């Protein structure tokens, strides 16, 4: 059933970063004592970025090789299998009833994501070697970063849901480690815990979904599951009960995606995750980890496609998240918070696209978003670096003179994010909105919210640009001397800027009469899902006229609101303060992300704390301790009393013995 040729070299793609991680970790441990003597000592730790970048470059080279190998194959046969490692076998080895083989599979989807992960990852590694210079945990940082890349690659390359789960948990762990990288400060450690715990909620859903799939299909191999729902799969031919189970599995897996990809209602960890070093925000919380939910949905597309209710839910959740994230980003003062909420919002777009069945469009937006959001984060990092760890945009301004390269690249990223015409974000966002519009029904409402969010996106992006790089210089000149970052940081920015601007060519809309490269590339992967969707309700393509109108509308909205946002804040942050004065309730509500965090505090955390208090002070200290101590003192008191029986007098003992014998024999006789 599966193509026999096996490609053992696929294993090297994740293994290289793993080896790099081990080496960097060893370096960290080796230099631990040296740093204890002299915190400034560089020593061998300086080698860490070289090792990490080399590992990333190797992984990228292999990913490119895999991409080229795939390109050389026929479209239908674009699958490369690695040899399987027999991981778990339960039952008779010849005919096991539960069997997990760990196998890496490179197909167009995992190849695309692998290229993004290794490519953007390499750039971020290079950037980080400049950004993190002088940090006490220099080598440790690269160890975590490489470990993260390993886990992420396992996630996208593994064929089994269990392998995906290993990666899924691995990226969660690395995210935890990296968010809390500066744990000495206190709040990063809390943010890390929040991220981890929130993710656990999603992970539990993921596991339940996997179990349901195992029960339905008897296997955890995603490629096999998709193959079974392939061409001869007729949705109307299956049992209602099975359909319900498929929908449940899809629902729970989507719950997992909500956790990992920061969707409603589990998105609150992502803004807090900005406590980590900025390269981490770029790599994990913008470009890669948060997209794993999108990957999973696309990978199991026939599963989701066969339950329309779940698809609508995905779209609804996506668009709600997009709206909440976008509106919250409008009023944030912290530059990284703006980007974080923007990420939440853009991920919402991707899920909106997934819910309409536009799997290719979602992956397209994923890729372009990886480019421009990584760029924006790294640019923000460069600004923060140049401003001596200042993140408040109200205390910036006029930086374009001081940091020209950062400014220019940031501008490119902002243009792409806000969807200015012909930028990468323009095409990807527009494709999603076009698909939403085309789906009709409740999706019209989603489309309206989507356009509204697009307007907000343009507005807050250019507000950020204006506050950071334009207007009067609001920082203290005596203490802060903004400076351009070193080349090791700006070169990755430039590469990403080029990708952000030109990324749109991957998926030009049909009206351009050019091939949609990414959709064609992914077609074999999403074919089963699309086929099922067509069974449910056949789509007709949008007419060119409609499409032109939508494109024009998107461009007009983006331009208008980008212009407004820029104009409003070009002179300084006064409008923010005006909003705060004029409508303090609204400002607070938006600034607090629609008060969802505080709602959690009241609805989830407070009852939990009360419960914990009750458990600790009443159940534990009174009841359990009482039982334990009571058992002890009972034995002690009994012993104190029973001690008198051991009088040491022989006849007393004899009396007890004889009495016992008499009682026993009498009882015996009478019964």
């Amino acid at each position, binding site marked *: 059933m599966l193509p026999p040729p096996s490609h053992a070299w696929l294993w090297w793609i994740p293994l290289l970063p793993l080896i790099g991680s081990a080496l960097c970790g060893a370096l960290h441990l080796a230099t631990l004592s040296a740093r204890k003597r002299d915190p400034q000592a560089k020593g061998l730790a300086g080698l860490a970025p070289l090792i990490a970048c080399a590992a990333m470059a190797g992984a990228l080279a292999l990913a490119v090789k895999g991409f080229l190998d795939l390109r050389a194959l026929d479209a239908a046969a674009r699958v490369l299998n690695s040899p399987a490692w027999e991981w778990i076998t339960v039952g008779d080895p010849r005919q096991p009833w539960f069997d997990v083989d760990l196998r890496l599979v490179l197909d167009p989807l995992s190849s695309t994501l692998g290229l993004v992960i290794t490519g953007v990852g390499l750039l971020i590694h290079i950037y980080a070697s400049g950004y993190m210079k002088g940090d006490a945990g220099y080598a440790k940082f690269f160890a975590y970063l490489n470990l993260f890349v390993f886990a992420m690659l396992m996630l996208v390359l593994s064929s089994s849901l269990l392998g995906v789960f290993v990666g899924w948990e691995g990226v969660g762990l690395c995210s935890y480690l990296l968010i809390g990288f500066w744990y000495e400060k206190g709040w990063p450690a809390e943010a890390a815990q929040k991220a981890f715990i929130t993710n656990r909620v999603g992970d539990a859903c993921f596991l339940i979904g996997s179990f349901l799939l195992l029960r339905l299909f008897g296997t955890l191999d995603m490629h096999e599951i998709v193959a079974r729902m392939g061409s001869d799969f007729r949705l109307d031919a299956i049992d209602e009960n099975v359909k319900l189970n498929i929908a449940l599995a899809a629902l729970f897996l989507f719950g997992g995606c909500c956790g990992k990809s920061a969707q409603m209602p589990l998105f609150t960890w992502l803004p807090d995750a900005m406590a980590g070093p900025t390269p981490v925000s770029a790599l994990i919380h913008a470009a890669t980890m948060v997209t794993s939910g999108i990957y999973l949905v696309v990978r199991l597309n026939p599963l989701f496609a066969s339950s329309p209710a779940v698809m609508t839910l995905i779209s609804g959740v996506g668009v709600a998240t997009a709206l909440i994230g976008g509106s919250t980003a409008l009023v944030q003062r912290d530059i990284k918070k703006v980007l974080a909420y923007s990420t939440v919002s853009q991920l919402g777009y991707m899920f909106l696209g997934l819910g309409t069945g536009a799997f290719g469009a979602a992956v397209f937006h994923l890729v372009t978003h990886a480019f421009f959001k990584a760029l924006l984060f790294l640019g923000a990092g460069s600004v923060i670096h140049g401003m001596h760890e200042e993140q408040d945009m109200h205390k910036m301004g006029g930086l374009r003179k001081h940091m020209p390269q950062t400014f220019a690249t940031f501008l490119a990223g902002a243009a792409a994010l806000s969807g200015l015409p012909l930028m990468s974000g323009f095409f990807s966002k527009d494709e999603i909105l076009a698909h939403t519009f085309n789906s009709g029904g409740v999706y019209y409402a989603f489309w309206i919210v989507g356009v509204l969010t697009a307007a907000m996106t343009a507005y807050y992006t250019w507000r950020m640009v204006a506050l950071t790089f334009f207007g009067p210089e609001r920082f203290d000149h005596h203490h802060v001397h903004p400076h351009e970052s070193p080349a090791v940081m700006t070169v990755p920015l430039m590469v990403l800027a080029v990708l952000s601007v030109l990324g749109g060519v991957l998926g030009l809309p049909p009206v351009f009469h050019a091939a949609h490269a990414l959709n064609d590339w992914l077609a074999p992967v999403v074919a089963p899902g699309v086929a099922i969707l067509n069974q449910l309700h056949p789509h007709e393509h949008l007419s060119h006229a409609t499409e032109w109108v939508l494109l024009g509308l998107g461009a007009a909205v983006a331009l208008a609101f980008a212009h407004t946002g820029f104009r409003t804040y070009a002179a300084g942050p006064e409008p923010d303060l005006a909003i705060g004065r004029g409508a303090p309730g609204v400002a607070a509500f938006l600034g607090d992300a629609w008060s969802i965090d505080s709602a959690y505090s009241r609805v989830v955390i407070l009852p939990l704390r009360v419960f914990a208090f009750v458990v600790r002070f009443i159940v534990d200290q009174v009841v359990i301790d009482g039982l334990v101590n009571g058992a002890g003192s009972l034995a002690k008191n009994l012993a104190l009393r029973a001690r008198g*029986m*051991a*009088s*040491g*007098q*022989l*006849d007393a003992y*004899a009396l007890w013995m*004889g009495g016992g014998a008499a009682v026993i024999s009498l009882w015996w006789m009478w019964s």
Partner: protein
Amino acid sequence: MNVPSEHLFFLSAGLFSLGVLGFLVRRNVIVTLMCVELMLNAANLAFLAASRMHSTPEALDVQGPVFSIFVITVAAAEAAVGLALVIALYRLKQSVESDSASEMKG
């Protein structure tokens, strides 16, 4: 002799409870040991009575006598060790009262 077996058993029970009573009330260790002998004799009597009860002229039941022999042997050993203990106790405490050895008080 034409006595019902019950009467032999009654005698045995009586002797045994006398032995128990003496064992409990007397403090002279030597007398206590004698009471133990009394109890063992009561047991012997019970064994023999049972043996008599189960014997017919055709098939004699000798398990009672056999066990009596064992009991007598054990009784002899017990008396020997017990009296040796009495001597040791007397050496230690100048007394044969069981009260005098109460160092094991809890």
